[in-house]
């Protein structure tokens, strides 16, 4: 198959997402004290020495001398103090780091939990934000903090670490293993070289046993190797060189409400990692989910979110039978391996889950099934649960119907024999069980047993069971109640489930139809709000982007007041396209939960939900429905946006084709006569007054020419018709030819050039760069007095080569450093400029076409500075051996 050689789209997507992102380097250790922080600082110091912009975000030295020596040369970002319960805690100042924008930031202790009130609960989330902002991060972590290894480490060290880091954090990171043999580590501990907080000393003494350290070291080595493996695999799938990969594996893990189910999820994750296979977490929602206690609901949510944080795809299926649903999903999702948990706790004489496992084993072929035994954390036994659930109405109906039958049978005793009376008692039992469930049936059975005994069995009017007949009758009634109740309950549950699906489908369909009819954003927003409000029964708002912030665009009766935290959470969502607020990982202090409306065009709007009194806004059983509704809402937004864009585009394209036609004719029909005029004027020789007139013709013709060329250049830029031919270029050449070209028009101007002779070659289009530089110098000449020199400097900047053009004029007006690159942005300060107002727009267009940037700034001493920045990636290094 030729398809196999093609890069996998997922891998390419990941690669693309990674571009522009900072890179993460993790110094991984087996245990505290192996020297991770030391190695990180060492590398940071090396990078600093090599000219990189390195700062310390946060590093704990614990007073160790050798570490402090390393910290000394590195600039440190001041920590932020957070007062919590009277204590002052210090944390990394995330905003200060983002503001400072270093190339590389060192952040110790990846697994750290931030003080309450910080933006993110966990430090790894801070780091994620830094990476997204394009800053490289170096950090440290010990192996026991890796989420999927948490149980394994806990099982042999007997030390539970609560601070864990999701595996996905490691996925795109470069991992450097800091290895130290256990003997050396123990020596270092004994020498007091390892910092251990006093309260943890006892626990850690056990932790640092040689056996533990050996096991941890092995785990760390294996883990590091696995990531190297994964990266090689990914590299292969990006480059399309896919070989030797156990393809086609899909792991399905069953999620339940069982406490301790996390162990099952982590085991599945390890399996998926080892096989490099996708992991799907499946939850089968049975009718019993409606009867879950709060603790069970929380546990289920925790198991599901753990699976999500480990990178699993969540799938929730409503069904009456777990085993049937599971088997159907295995087939549908083409799972090759199924991971199930089996509680080791006391399951009672009949364990429902054991039954499920047995049924699945019986019902599958060709699927590997892993059963992970786990210790179910004993939950306080809920005695009320032994008594089956039902309604008071059912209980009353049960007793009432038995009473009515008893009365009727008692009055009719004369006409009928006593023989069939016990049979008649089946009627209320079956009736109650089928209409009101097992509990009503049971009550009816008990009541019937007592009534039958009391009224119709000798000795009459006593409840004394004697004789096998009586016992058989009583047992029969209860058994009938149980069977009927179960059957009826199952049928009712199935009906209820079907009804719920039907209702949800109907509301989704109705939602879709109504959204399809809406034609404005406002209308759509209101529709989305109303529909979600009625389906989810929680307070709902819709927010849209408004300038730098977000604004509520649809709400219920009254517009809710958002606190600054709520506002921040909503803004986070629109900027990052991720959930924020209550019940998420970001800005959890908000009373609202905000969800993005994500589309292929970016996050177009934000939905806000607020549950009653701070409870989770979207209940677990509604999560899947909510997900579909949000998807629909996002689609509707995308459609509107596309429609609007299309309308705009039609207008623009009409305008554009007109403009292009006009410019094409301008180009041809103006160029020829202008060429003739220019050349003819140059050939004219005149004296006296006429000489001045001829000079006017010459210079004006030249100006017209410039203007025409500028217009054409700009048209090419705007039509995307500039296709740079990037070849290794010497900036000296570019600057020298620009100066040469301008020699005539800048006659009498002093132009100083200063070029760093050690500058590397850069990949550029010499013509475009030359042209951009010409425009910059021309601009500098126009906006500065004749006697002021113009300086051109080529030097190495922090992020790559830089060309500065400096003038000694009045400088750019404050605040217009960006606007100056707009079309027709002429400066007001001078009246003798006579430019087209397009020069700088062309500079910007050409520079960006080559992947460079331009910026303008006021010089401290007066005048302006225009800078073309060339990224490091565009530099070319040539080895001399090739050339000679």
């Amino acid at each position, binding site marked *: 198959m030729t398809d196999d050689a093609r890069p996998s789209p997922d891998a390419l997507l990941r690669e693309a997402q990674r571009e522009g992102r900072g890179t993460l380097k993790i110094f991984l250790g087996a245990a505290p004290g192996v020297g991770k922080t030391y190695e990180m600082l060492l590398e940071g110091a090396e990078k600093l020495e090599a000219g990189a912009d390195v700062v310390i975000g946060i590093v704990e030295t614990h007073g160790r001398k050798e570490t402090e020596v390393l910290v000394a040369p590195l600039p440190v970002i001041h920590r932020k103090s957070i007062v919590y319960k009277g204590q002052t805690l210090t944390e990394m100042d995330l905003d200060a780091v983002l503001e400072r924008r270093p190339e590389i930031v060192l952040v110790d202790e990846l697994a750290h939990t931030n003080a309450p009130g910080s933006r993110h609960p966990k430090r790894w989330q801070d780091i994620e934000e830094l990476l997204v902002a394009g800053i490289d991060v170096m950090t440290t972590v010990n192996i026991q903090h890796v989420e999927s290894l948490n149980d394994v480490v806990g099982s042999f060290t007997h030390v539970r670490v609560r601070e864990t880091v999701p595996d996905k954090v490691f996925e795109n990171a470069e991992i450097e293993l800091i290895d130290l043999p256990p003997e050396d580590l123990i020596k270092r501990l004994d020498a007091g070289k390892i910092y251990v907080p006093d309260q943890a000393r006892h626990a850690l003494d056990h932790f640092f046993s040689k056996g533990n350290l050996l096991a941890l070291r092995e785990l760390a080595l294996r883990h590091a190797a696995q990531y190297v493996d994964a990266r090689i695999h990914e590299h292969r799938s990006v480059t399309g060189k896919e070989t030797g990969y156990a393809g086609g594996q899909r792991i399905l893990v069953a999620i339940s409400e069982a406490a301790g189910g996390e162990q099952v999820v982590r085991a599945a994750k390890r399996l998926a990692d080892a096989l490099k296979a996708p992991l799907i977490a499946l939850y089968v929602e049975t009718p019993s989910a409606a009867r879950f206690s709060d603790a069970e609901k929380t546990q289920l949510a925790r198991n599901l979110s753990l699976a999500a944080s480990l990178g699993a795809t969540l799938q929730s299926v409503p069904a009456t039978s777990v085993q049937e649903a599971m088997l159907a999903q295995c087939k549908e999702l083409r799972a090759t391996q199924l991971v199930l948990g089996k509680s080791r706790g006391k399951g009672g004489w009949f364990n429902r889950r054991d039954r499920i496992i047995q049924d699945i084993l019986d019902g599958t072929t060709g699927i590997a099934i892993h059963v992970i035994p786990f210790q179910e954390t004993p939950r306080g036994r809920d005695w009320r649960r032994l008594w089956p659930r039902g309604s008071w109405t059912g209980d009353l109906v049960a007793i009432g119907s038995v009473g009515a039958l008893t009365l009727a049978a008692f009055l009719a005793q004369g006409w009928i024999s006593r023989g069939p009376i016990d049979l008649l008692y089946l009627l209320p039992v079956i009736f109650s069980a089928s209409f009101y469930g097992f509990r009503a049936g049971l009550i009816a059975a008990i009541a019937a047993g007592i009534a039958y005994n009391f009224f119709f069995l000798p000795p009459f009017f006593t409840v004394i069971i004697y004789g096998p007949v009586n016992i058989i009758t009583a047992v029969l009634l209860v058994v009938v109640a149980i069977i009927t109740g179960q059957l009826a309950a199952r049928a009712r549950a199935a009906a209820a489930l079907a009804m719920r699906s039907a209702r949800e489908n109907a509301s989704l369909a109705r939602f879709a139809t109504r959204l399809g009819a809406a034609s404005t954003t406002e209308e759509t927003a209101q529709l989305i709000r109303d529909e979600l409000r009625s389906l989810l029964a929680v307070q709902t708002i819709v927010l849209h982007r408004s300038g730098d912030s977000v604004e509520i665009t649809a709400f219920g009766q009254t517009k809710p007041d958002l606190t600054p935290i709520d506002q921040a959470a909503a803004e986070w969502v629109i900027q990052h396209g991720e959930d924020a607020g209550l019940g998420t990982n970001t800005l959890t202090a908000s009373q609202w939960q905000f969800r993005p409306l994500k589309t292929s065009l970016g996050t177009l709007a934000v939905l806000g939900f607020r549950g009653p009194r701070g409870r989770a806004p979207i209940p677990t059983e509604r999560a899947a429905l909510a997900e579909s509704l949000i998807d629909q809402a996002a689609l509707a937004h995308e459609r509107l946006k596309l429609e609007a864009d299309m309308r705009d585009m039609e207008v623009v394209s009409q305008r554009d084709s007109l403009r292009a036609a006009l410019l094409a004719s301008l180009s041809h029909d103006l160029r020829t006569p202008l060429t003739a005029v220019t050349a003819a004027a140059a050939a004219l020789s005149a004296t006296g007054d006429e000489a001045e007139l001829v000079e006017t013709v010459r210079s004006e013709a030249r100006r017209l020419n410039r203007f025409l060329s500028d217009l054409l250049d700009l048209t090419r830029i705007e039509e995307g018709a500039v296709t740079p031919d990037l070849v*290794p270029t010497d900036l000296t050449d570019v600057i*020298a030819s620009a100066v040469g070209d301008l020699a005539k028009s800048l006659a009498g101007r002093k132009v100083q050039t200063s070029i760093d002779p050690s500058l590397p070659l850069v990949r550029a289009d*010499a013509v475009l760069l030359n042209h951009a530089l010409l425009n910059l110098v021309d601009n500098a000449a126009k906006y500065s007095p004749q006697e002021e020199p113009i300086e051109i400097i080529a030097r190495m900047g922090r992020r790559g080569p830089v060309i500065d053009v400096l003038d000694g004029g009045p400088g750019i007006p404050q605040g217009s450093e960006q606007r100056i690159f707009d079309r027709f942005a002429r400066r007001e300060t001078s009246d003798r400029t006579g430019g087209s107002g397009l020069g700088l727009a062309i500079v910007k267009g050409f520079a960006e076409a080559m992947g460079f940037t331009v910026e303008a700034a006021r010089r401290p001493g007066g005048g302006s500075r225009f800078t073309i920045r060339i990224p490091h990636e565009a530099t070319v290094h040539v080895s001399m051996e090739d050339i000679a």
Partner: protein
Amino acid sequence: MNGNILIVDDEMPIRRLLRVALERSGYATVEADCGAAALDALRQAVPKLVLLDLGLPDRDGLELIGAFREMLVPIIVLTAREASSEKVAALDLGADDYVTKPFDSEELLARIRSCLRRADQSQGHLRKMTVGPVSIDLDAHGVWKNGAEVKLTPKEFTFLGVLASHPGKVLTHTHLLREVWGPAHTDHVEYLRVTVRSLRKKLEEDPSAPMLIQNEPGVGYRFVER
């Protein structure tokens, strides 16, 4: 008719302008307004130089270059400024130089003079020359600056030799790479950059404002003409 300058351009005003300018400088001219007329003119008498506009109504001007080349007629191409790939193509096909529209008649005349001078000397290439403080003797394999010999690497010397034996003529990147490093390396523009940089350091008074080896952005290099 021999010894005329042939003007090939479809725009009458340009032809007229060129004719006036050239005749004022003492050249006789012939005009052609399309490719067919140009070939006719070439057949009737061999001109001593051709000014060729590439945008002709009946054919691509590039197709004509070969025909003129065969008759050893020097060619100066008239092109638009942004068309650097067109310039390179014309030079690689054998054109001698190009002038960018809109041009100055003085500049054009200077190019014509330089081109004709090279054509006169083309039988015996220049082997010895002195430009400013630098003297080059290709046969003696030596380069001197202010009287002191300058050490060049073999590639640097070959490169300088190729360039300096055509003073005033633009040699394209591809041409230079093929001559100095061989046909397998015609894409390695970086070799040229590094060599030129090194040569400038050794020979120029101010390497950041080079006089000897001039760059034509996107096209090639030109050795200065005295």
